[in-house]
Structures are given as C-alpha cells and as structure tokens.
C-alpha cells in the first residue's frame, strides 16, 4: 500500500457538453414523432401533402370572400373585378342576406327578441342541471322553463301555460296529501286529479283569467317557426323527454314481470329496427288514420313525440348496458337495507348505472340532435329546408358550399359542445383512483 494519490483519476467534474442540435428542441421532437422510420416518414409526407393541397384550395377561396351582394352572379362579378378573371371565392353574402331565415325561419322579425330571450332562458334553466356550482335556486327556473319557453315562442295568452302548469301543481298537492297512506294510491290520485284539472278546469280557468287580466303575446303559427330555432326546439324537447322514458324502458326490459318485459322488448326492438324517416312519415301520413276523425294536432308536436320515442329506445339500450355493468352486490345490498324497488333504483342503482352510461347517453343526444335535420322530409322548414329553398331561387342558384358550411358549423358547435361536456362530467364523477 502506498499513500501516493491515484494520479489518473480526476478530482473535479467536467462541464456537461451541450447535446447535439438534433437531440434537442423541435428537431428532436420531429425526428421522434414524425420521421422515426420509413413508414412514419412516408405517412408524414403524405399528410403534409394532403394538408397543403387542402389549404391551397381553401385559403384563397376564403380570402376572396364577398359579404355584400344580391345574387351569385353579382358576387362572382365582384370577385372577378377584385381578384382577377380566374379567381374563385366564397360568397358569404348569401348568409348575410338570408341569415334570419336560416336561424329563425319565418318567425316575425319584431318577435326575434322573444326567440332570443327563450334561448337565454334555456341556457339559464339548463345551467343548474349541468353544473353543480350554479346556485340551486335556479332549479325553479328549470322547472318552470317548459311553460315559459312555450309561451315566449308560440305566444298567445299567458294564462294558457299557467293553467296547464296548475294541473301539475294540483296533482302534486293530491300526491302530498295521500302519500302518508300509500305511495301507489298517492301516485294514482295525483295522476287522476291532474287529468281532471286539464280536462275540466284548465279551459275555464284560462278563459276566466284572460278575461280578467289579459296578458298575451302575439301568437305565432307553428309553420312560421323554422330554421335553426326549430332544430333546437325539437332537439331540446326530445333530449329532455327521451331520458326519463329511456330509463323507464330500460327498467321495463330488466323487470321480472313478464308482460312488462315483453312489451318493453318489443317496443325497443321495433323502434331500433326501422329508420327514423319511416316513423316521421307515420307521424305525418298515418296519424290521421289512428286518431279519432277530426283530430289534427300540431306537426311540430307530432315530430317531437316521434323523435322522443325513437331516441328513448336507443337510450333504453344504453342504460341497460349501464345496469348490466353494475355488480349484483349493489342490488343485493339495496335489498338488504330494506329499500323498496323505487327507493333502491333512485338512491343506489340509477346514480351508478347512469354514471357508467354517460358517454352512451350523450352520444344518443348528439345523434338525436343531428337527426332533427330529417324533419325537412315531412315539410318542416329546418335549416336544410331553407338551404334547399335558397338554392332553388334564381338569385342563388348554384351556390352550395357557403350555406352548408354555415349550417354545418352551427351543428358542429352544439354537438362538439355536448361531447366535451360529457368528458367533463365523466372526469367530475370519477370516484375511483387510478
């Protein structure tokens, strides 16, 4: 052993060298993500080519947009004089000229504030249901909104929706009075009292109050309600009504009672087996056969009913999936706690089953909202109907991209918003820890 120091060992560390330029920053990222192999490089080049071709076609077209013109030929004249004889450009002047039809249909112009107010009210009414941070008191607005929205859009006497609302109120009071005795009897009593109110009392109350205190908006015919407003009305009504109906159908399909199960299965499979168009045609052509002679109720209402039934069948299947995914122990635990059927469903089963099926439910909602475009085939003037009408006029004959882009973008915003919300909700309700 010597006490000589080991001369060949360094005593101080060297400064780290900077990494080579292709190992840092965007170059490294590109090398790893875009050009990691020959297949990957080829894919990158092909996609870049596709993107550039699309941009080369679309960018000048958007760049040459004309906003003010009375017809397509005038539009083209402006584009040719501004950007050269071979230039091609977008003619969004058609949107500028016809936006009110695409959005509101033939709704009277002086009533646009009513439609807008109804839309704002809808957002306020939906907010407390969608987000738990919103004050709970707004839920009262949500409960009243169907009547308020109906009155704002269709107008007429204020007392008509109020007397309809009172039917629910008296039914609720009857239920409250009887619920001490028996839930089943109370439900039946509430139902009967409400129906009696609607059949016998609602009309006179409406007339009487209108005579005493006439508060009314100018009434608007259903055929004047059109454009995107109509899509929203049908979509929102269908969404609100199809969820509870879907839950009932799913429970019916899972039920132990033979008849209820059979009828639910038959209904679900029938609706899921036929295209929506046939159901809409049934609503417009055949309903006159099935109802007593002389009955003629609103086409929009018929469509809402059909769209609701259609979406409810799909909803039922989605919720059934959620019910099936619950472990049996949950049902058994609910029974062990001595809960009756409805309490077990309300407190234990449904909250979990619905949480599991959120993505499917929202997908059904999105599908329903997109399907509202089919009402054009039975003569309702939704945005597609107006596009067809505009393209048939001599002024705008030959235009298509601009109109479809506008309407497509409207639908995209709503549907994409719904899917983003469902992701948010899933994250919020996630209770298991990964």
């Amino acid at each position, binding site marked *: 052993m010597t006490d000589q120091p080991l001369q060949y060992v360094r005593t101080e560390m060297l400064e780290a060298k900077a990494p080579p330029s292709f190992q840092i920053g965007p170059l490294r990222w590109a090398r790893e*993500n*875009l050009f990691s192999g020959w297949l*990957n490089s080829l894919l990158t080049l092909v996609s870049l080519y*596709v993107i550039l071709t699309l941009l080369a076609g679309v960018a000048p077209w958007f760049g040459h947009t004309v906003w003010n013109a009375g017809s397509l030929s005038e539009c083209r004249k402006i584009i040719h004089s501004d950007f050269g004889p071979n230039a091609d450009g977008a003619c969004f002047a058609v949107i500028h000229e016809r936006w009110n039809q695409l959005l509101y249909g033939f709704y009277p112009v002086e009533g646009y504030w009513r439609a807008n107010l109804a839309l704002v009210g809808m957002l306020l009414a939906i907010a407390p249901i969608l987000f738990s941070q919103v004050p709970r008191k707004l839920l009262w607005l949500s409960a009243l909104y169907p009547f308020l929205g109906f009155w704002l859009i269709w107008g007429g006497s204020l007392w008509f929706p109020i007397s309809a609302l009172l039917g629910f109120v008296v039914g609720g009071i009857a239920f409250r009075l009887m619920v001490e005795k028996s839930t089943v009897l109370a439900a039946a009593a509430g139902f009967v009292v409400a129906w009696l109110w609607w059949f016998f009392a609602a009309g006179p109350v409406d007339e009487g109050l209108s005579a005493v205190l006439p508060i009314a908006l100018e009434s608007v015919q259903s055929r004047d309600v059109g454009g995107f407003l109509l899509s929203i009305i049908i979509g929102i009504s269908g969404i609100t009504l199809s969820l509870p109906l879907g839950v009932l159908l799913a429970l019916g399909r899972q039920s132990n009672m033979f008849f209820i199960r059979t009828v639910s299965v038959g209904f679900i499979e029938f609706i899921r087996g*036929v295209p929506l168009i046939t159901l809409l045609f049934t609503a417009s052509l055949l309903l006159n056969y099935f*109802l*007593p002679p002389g009955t003629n109720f609103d086409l929009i209402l018929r469509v809402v009913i059909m769209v609701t039934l259609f979406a409810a069948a799909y909803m039922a299947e989605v919720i059934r999936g959620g019910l099936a995914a619950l472990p049996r122990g949950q049902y058994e635990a609910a029974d062990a706690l001595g809960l009756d059927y409805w309490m077990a469903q309300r407190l234990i089963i449904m909250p979990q089953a619905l949480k599991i099926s959120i993505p499917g439910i929202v997908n059904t909602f999105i599908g329903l909202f997109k399907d509202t475009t089919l009402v*054009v085939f039975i003569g309702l003037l939704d945005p597609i109907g107006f*596009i067809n009408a505009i393209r048939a006029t001599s002024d705008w004959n030959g235009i298509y991209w601009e109109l479809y882009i506008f309407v497509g973008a409207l639908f*995209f915003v709503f549907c994409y918003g719904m899917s983003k919300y469902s992701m948010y909700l899933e994250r919020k309700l996630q209770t298991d820890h990964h």
Partner: protein
Amino acid sequence: MADITIPPKDSFRLSMLIYDTRYRSLTIQVVFMFLLMAGATWLVNNTIYNLHVLGKDFSYSFLWSRAGYDINQRFIAYNSDSTHGRAMLVGLLNTLFIAFISCVAATVLGVIAGVLRLSKNWVVAKLMAIYVESFRNIPLLIWILVIFAVMTEAAPAPNAFRGANPSAHMWFFDTIAVTNRGVYFPEPLFFRSLGNIDLGIFLVSTDLLAIIAVMVLSILGYKRLQRSAETVQNATGIRPVTWWKSALILIAPIVILLVALGFHLGYPELKGFNFRGGVHARNSLIALWVALSVYTGAFIAEIVRAGIQAISRGQTEAALALGLKPGQTTNLVVLPQALRVIIPPMISEYLNITKNTSLAIAVGYMDLRATLGGITLNQTGRELEAMLLMMGIYLAISLIISSVMNFYNRSVKLKER
C-alpha cells in the same frame, strides 16, 4: 326483494292486491295489460272507422297491379309494365346494394383511420382526429347533400370531354369518367359468356356463378395445403416451402377461367351527348355511398381505436417475450382479443348504415323508400298498407343482420367456464 312474508291467517282482502308482494306484480301486470289492450283497441277502432269514412279497404292487392313508373337503377328486369310488387323488389335490392357497398367501404376507412389515430406520428394522429370529429358532429344529411351538390355542380359536363383539346379528362388512364351526370366505370364483359339462368323472378349470370365457384374451390385448396404443411411442420419441425404452390392454387384457376370466358373490359366512350358503354353510377348513388361510408367510417374508427386501446400493453409484451414476431403478435394475440371488443358495436354501425340508406330520399336514389314508400304509395293512395309493409321489411332486414352478426359474435366470444 325481501319476499319473506308470514302468510296472513285471515282471509283474502282487496287491499292485499296492492300491499302483498305475492299479488302486487300480478296486479300491476293485469292493470298494465288492460290499459294496453284498451289503447290498442281504441287505435284499431279509429283506423277501421277512418278507413270506412274514406271508403277504403285494407288490402295488398295493389302489389299485383301495373306500376307504370320507371326505375333508373335496377338489378333485375323491370319496366313500367311490371307490378308494384316487382318495383318494391327492385327498390329493396337497391337498398341492400347501397348498404352492402357502404358497409365495406366504411369498414376499410374506419379501420385505417382508427389505427392511424393511435399512431405516434403527431400530424397523422391530428389529421385523423379532425376527420373523426368533423364527421361525427355534423349531420349525415348535410354530408349527403354537400357531396351531391359537388357532384352535380362542380363535376364537368360530358361535353367538356369532347374535342382535340378537352377541358376535362378521364381518370386512371382514360378508364373512369367523372361527369355531372354520374360516374362511368369500365364494365366486365365476356366474349364467350355462358349465358343466364332464369329463376322465374330474376336472371342469374352463370359466368358469375362459375367465377365464385372457382374462387371458393381455390381457397379451400389453399387451406388444405396450409394444413398439410402444418402437419409436416409438427412432425418434422421443418415447414415445407409452399409459397409457389399457394400462388399457383390461388391464381392459376381463376386466370384460366377468365381467359376461357374471354374476359375483357368495356370502357365508357363519349358518343353523341353522353357516355356510352361501361357501368353508369348515378350521382345519387355515388353521393349516398361516399357520404355513408365516410360518415360511418368516422364512427367505426372510434370503435376500432377503443378496441385496440382495451388490450393492455402486457399482452403485446408477453407475446413478444414468448418469441412471437410482431406480425404474429398482432394476428394471434392482439387482434383476436380486440375483435371481441370491436364486433358488438360494429354490428350496430352496420345496422345504422342499413337504416340510414333511407336518406336516399334526399338525392332521389331509387331505394325501397322511394319505390314502395314513395311513388307506389302516392299512386295507389295506400298509405297504411305501404308504410306497414315498408316498416316490416326494414325490421326484417335489421333482425336478419343482427342475428347473423350475433351468431358470428358468439363464435369469437371468449369461452368462459
């Protein structure tokens, strides 16, 4: 439910129908059935009364009367003297045809897009995400109408192909003509055709039958060759060289048959004001096909992506650790498991395509809805009969597709014990 109730000693009381769990479900069902029957009776009575008032009866005899209208795309012989029933059949075949080609194209597109969306390549993954999101969030009807509008407004007229220096050109070495009147493809023709067999309802081409038979036989022979190679490999450990035999078995018979039949392509040619020869696919067909495939392809892409992501990485790693090649890992380990997740939602996408073909109404494609539920309905005024029959047919198609696919699903499902 807690069903253990001590049987009451006293006699039956009416309130037990509601409060006693032994009778309650019976009570509910009886009341339910009573209400349902009452509702159904009411509807049927109304219908009978309304038909009576209108002076109509309920009969399907119109199916055997002369239709009197033309159908522009038909796979079986049909003219305006044919019956409404035959018109319905032509429409049904058109519906099935568009549904089938859309299912095939949507599957191909969807699988490619789904796999590419999982790619590590950022640009490709984003591009596929944009494709999927834009098609899933915009109504199918808009896509059908846009594509139809592009086909009719932006495609060149047949006139543009004329002259020494035409402004439009045919695609793929002058074989496919895209015009505003539709797309013209080359059609397969035979110099020495074997003729057709008349089945009474429609004609069957013997050439097609022969080709299918030869192909099936070749594939069976190929399977057999593979099996015998496997037996040799299991016995000796060395796999005999089979690739040239496989190629011979798969390719030679069909080539010989095609040459014997005198197979050649008939190209579309501009004659007069329009193209002659070849297969003419109308704009309505093309728009419906493209829109249905691309739209449903976006949904299938998401299904495929979910299926692949459902297989945990451990499976791939275990397969590689066992010494399987990457191709074998995919074919033997990942795909069989992913398919189990993919198939059930895929069935409902195929059903959706079939039902969505009824949107043909937007572009005037002559499908079942346009013949039976459209012109026939309007001509005969038999709304009730035509609509019920049409719904029944759609229902039958849906049930058949779902039962066939469910059968397939059961065969690949995980066998649990």
